[in-house]
């Protein structure tokens, strides 16, 4: 079992109105050093795959097909091996 975390970011050339609005809030609170706020998505899930390569392939396809839209977003992901049984005992 692998735990995957995917981060979906808006492409740098694409306007992020939400990030802009949040940054206005930052300025109001006095965080004057804050710049270029961009808001993305963090997604985590488990993959039951026989090895890392298979898990990577599945996460990549899932991210390309559904989690991100390549016209406006990029994604990156990481995988960690996960022992489910241990988790359950805790």
């Amino acid at each position, binding site marked *: 079992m692998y735990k995957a975390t995917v981060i979906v970011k808006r492409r740098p050339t*694409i*306007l992020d*109105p*939400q990030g802009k*609005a949040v940054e206005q809030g930052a300025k109001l609170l006095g965080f004057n050093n804050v710049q270029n706020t961009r808001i993305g*998505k963090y997604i985590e899930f488990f993959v039951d795959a026989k090895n890392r390569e298979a898990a990577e392939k599945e996460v990549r396809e899932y991210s390309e097909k*559904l*989690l991100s*839209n390549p*016209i*406006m977003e990029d994604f990156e992901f990481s995988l960690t091996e996960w022992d489910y049984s241990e988790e359950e005992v805790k």
Partner: protein
Amino acid sequence: MKPKFGVVVFPGSNCDYDAYYAMKKVLGYDAEFLWHKDKDLKNSDVIILPGGFSYGDYLRTGAIARFSPIMDSVYSFAEKGGIVMGICNGFQILLEIGLLPGVMLQNVSLKFVCKDVYLRIENNNTIFTKDISKKTIKVPVKHGEGNYFADEGTIKSLEENSQILFRYSSNEGEVAEVYNPNGASKNIAGIMNKRQNVMGLMPHPENACDPVLRKTDGALIFKSVVQSLF
């Protein structure tokens, strides 16, 4: 024979009844709802993907609805030349499934817009606009993510192939930033595919059909489509 409009119902659609009502009760066409989990288009002549918030707009607008079983049938219907109209959320679904190019971003204002707008007819030689003799039409918009975006190459190709159908404008047809309700690239409100059988637009023509609402320009689009069927 009456033309038949199939209106797809996704979980979270909320303009499905508006479209059904406009087609059946106002314009007198045949209309039927198509459940998103079905695959049967029930011999519809035209498919309407209605407005709303399918799947709660989770992930991205239209991103999950495009994988609904009915969308396979809609996709093949469009590939065979069938007429598909995506309105608002329906437009967003057409972008996600790739029947039309581009994406929808959040409105630049970050606000949901709900008001009447004027659209300039950019190409009146299409099945969607043939019956419109006016320079502009008045229809309502109601959306939070209608900021149409595509890369420069795509916009250029849309322009070169006359695929842009409607732009936000003044009553007289002047296209300027001040008439743009959402920040859409080049004031684009509606486009079609190269083959001219799939259309997407953010404003709601189905909400401008019934004379009781004192605006009926939207009906011109549906009448154009129906004319092309016979």
